[in-house]
């Protein structure tokens, strides 16, 4: 990573940490759902954050998303399969809204209660 990009990444991370859980709680799940589509999150994670072994390494975003601080840090600075979303692309407000959307997604039924999966 170049020096400039490192600085930008750290700055973004700091902002993410500053907004923290409080900002996430104040955010809008409805707006977050729209942002989840607009910024392409759904492409790899599915419209409900269910993920895929092919496009998200099997990682599931919801229900029970990771703590906001870790979530924001990952989104801003990831150098893994997911491309980073820096603030120039995704504002802190949009990021908080997206997190609120993920928090709003209900838990799925236990697979043992779904006849097609009860094997």
């Amino acid at each position, binding site marked *: 990573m170049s020096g400039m990009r490192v600085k930008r990444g750290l700055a973004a991370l700091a902002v993410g940490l500053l907004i923290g859980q409080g900002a996430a709680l104040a955010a809008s799940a409805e707006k977050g759902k729209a942002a989840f589509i607009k910024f392409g999150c759904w*492409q790899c994670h599915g419209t409900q954050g269910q993920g895929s072994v*092919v496009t998200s390494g099997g990682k599931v975003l919801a229900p029970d998303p990771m703590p906001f601080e870790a979530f924001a840090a990952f989104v801003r600075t990831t150098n893994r*399969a997911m491309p*980073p979303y820096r603030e120039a*692309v995704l504002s802190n407000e949009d990021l908080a809204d997206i997190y609120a959307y993920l928090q709003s997604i209900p838990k*799925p039924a*236990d697979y043992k209660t779904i006849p097609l999966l009860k094997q």
Partner: protein
Amino acid sequence: MARKDPRPQVNRRKFLAGVAVAGAATAVSPSPDVANAATTATSLTGPGRAMPSAQRPSAHVAAVETATPQALPRAQTPDGSDFMVDVIKTLNIDYLPSNPASSFRGLHESLINYGKNTKPEFLTCTHEESAVAMSHGYFKVAGKPLLTLCHGTVGLQHASMAIYNAWCDRVPVIVVGGNELDAAKRPPGVPTFHSAQDINALVRDFTKWDDTPVSLQHFAQSMVRAYKIAMTPPHGPVAISLDAGLQQEPNHSNGERLYIPRYVPTSPPAGDYGAVREAARMLANAERPVIVVDRAARTPNGIKLLIELAEALQAAVVDQGGRMNFPKTHHLSRPATVIGQADVIIGMELSDYWATVNAWIDNGEHGHGLQESRIKQGTKLISISSVDLNTKANYQDFQRFQVVDVQMAADAEATLPALIEAVKAAIPASAKAAIEKRGEALRKAKVEGRERTLATAAIAWDASPISTARLTMELWAQIKDLDWSFVGSDRQMSNWASRLWPMEKHYHHLGGPGGYGVGYSLPASVGAALANRGTGRFSVSLQTDGDFMYAPGVLWTAAHHQIPLLSVMHNNRGYHQEVMHVQRLSNRRDRVASLGKTLGPIGTSIEAPDIDYAKMAASMGWWSAGPIKDPSELAPTLKRAVEVVKSGQPALVDVWTQPR
């Protein structure tokens, strides 16, 4: 070579008979006109002679030009293409999917009339790419190649991507391209534009062998040789350029009786004895051996052999899915993550050993990705691959260079009996308890892994667009009591079918296109369903929308030839791989991806308007339904579709799905 007359008003067989008669007469006693003409030509080219602008026609020439021609005797010998059919019939080829074309009209006519349209039966295709891909899918079920005729050059250009897929997927297809070779006799106009000196040059980089026979005897040898080369592992496509004139040449013996060489299969190459023993020693003494397979099981017997090897070692097996290699239900069937724990890995017929033991992450500031090893330092690598015997230079169907400790240029299935015997002999008695314990640990991991998979499948179960896990299991509920054959690909659907369906038989999973050329899945699934027809098997496919739109005319072929197939659409309304690529580059460059009026970045979506696949299918003779957006509607619709397919007809159900 005898050539056909370009003038359309002349009956070709009468013309050829006339040529034969005239030729014989010339040889015995040249006519005065011929002799005169020759004399005149000689004198006219002499020095100092004036060149008249035209000569007066002789009486004979004038009569030929102006008089009503007498009926010429029909040649008593059959045309060459009848003999070609005799040759083809010895190879026991069941079908001939092709798009009709003038450059092989002679052979076409002989196939359907002289050959009675059986062995092979002509299947009308609307695109050469579909014809070759049908042959591709057919082989992976039937284990036999089909023959495809192509118009040279444009037909072969259409076919070329499907031939490339077959090359990468190590599948034998026999492609015969018609060509008007003789420029002096070639019909003017369209046939000229469709001719070339060497049509096989188009596909030479990704065929095992090609030829241009110049006599009927040459054709007989070329066809049998082509079949033999295509069917010798590593399998691959072959091409024959077939001159149009040769097809219509009278079948003269020329004093030498034509014969058809007998096809005798060539034994596949097995691994060197010393290398096999060394590999066995390494595997027998490993603490965590892992077997990785891609196209190892060429035949159903290959699956049995792999089970025997895996059980002897109680080694985890990672099936990369180029073929149905190993039962998904077996306790030793494990995901690719086990590679990281291995101390010895044996890879068999892998597309790419480097990518098996290394990860590449499409990220990083420099823009060309990050590389990471997936394996522990010191892990020993063994390879058995017949592809080492047949690598070409131009097309890069291999990855970065991977150093391997024991590398056998050999066919894996042919090598397995010797390897199993050597492994059993090499296992020390003291190791047997540890091997058994290793198997028990893998059995426990298998059960735990399946529970995790089922729990993941439950997420977004009621979502709309419909989750790919839900669609896969709704479909399973309708076919689980049938002798099913999964003839599509689940690669774009999070591999749910491979993870949740009990795939055990060779026709339960056929793998993908090989070369990732989009447009393979729809025609290949029709070809595979053709191979299943009449066996009592139920053919079912999961079909992506982008692939569907390359050459949907194969739907008509399936309906016309009554090929039963249930095709269930994974309609995510986009070229999803590209959706993510453009998003990735937008992020890398700190730009918001422009969506235009669709959900994906501009240029990657198939929306606005939404394509009605059910109507498309119905227009070509399929029973169809959809688009289905509510998951609760899946069960009754799929149930009806299954009944239609069981009656012998193709059916399509369009489903709006999650992206992957």
